């Protein structure tokens, strides 16, 4: 696969639980991270809800898969977790509502990051 790391961004824009996209996106992130590429994850739109504190899907018999984000940088070597500031605001959320430390970016800055990517994976 060559020496240079490939820059890949997951664009997570769906809410958790109502659909499976975010759960299977995380499964992909975990697998990707073991190949030592440069993986980042951008949360925009409803994707920011995946990082909301206090999730407890036990009444639905669904596992809280978003807990993986707590360790995704340390255990799985994902390089960056970006959150779009405008999407947080529109949903009445701020950084203190999120389960883990992230880089909150203005939409314009996030767009510049997208321009650096080899591949964009929307989920």
């Amino acid at each position: 696969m060559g020496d240079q790391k490939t820059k890949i961004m997951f664009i997570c824009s769906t809410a958790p639980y109502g659909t499976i996209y975010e759960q299977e996106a995380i499964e992909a992130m975990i697998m990707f991270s073991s190949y030592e590429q440069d993986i980042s994850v951008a949360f925009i739109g409803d994707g920011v809800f995946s990082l909301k504190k206090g999730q407890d899907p036990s009444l639905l018999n669904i596992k809280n898969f978003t807990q993986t984000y707590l360790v995704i940088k340390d255990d799985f070597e994902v390089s960056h977790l970006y959150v779009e500031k405008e999407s947080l605001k529109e949903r009445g959320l701020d950084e203190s509502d999120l389960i883990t430390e992230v880089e909150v970016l203005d939409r314009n800055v996030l767009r510049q990051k997208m321009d650096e990517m080899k591949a964009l994976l929307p989920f």
Partner: protein
Amino acid sequence: MLHIVKRSPYESSALNDSLKYIREKDILLLTEDGIYSAKKGGKFENLIKGVLQNNKVFCLVADVKARGISESELIENVSLIDYKGFVEKVCDHNPVTWG
């Protein structure tokens, strides 16, 4: 009529579509990703407050808890119900599901 909305209002027109058909004595029930409509400080707060002036609005508690929305984060006068409450509402009103 019981209007069931199960999609996020940020990505789907389901909430808006339901509100076009809501009438006096109807009930709005938010389930699955639909519960985000009832979050305080979100984009749809004023819309839901408007609905509450004429209609009752319920959220399914299992869906609210799953998504980490605490009771204090819900718009005032939105009520929580469990699946049994959901069943009761369907007994009382003919249901239509949006989106």
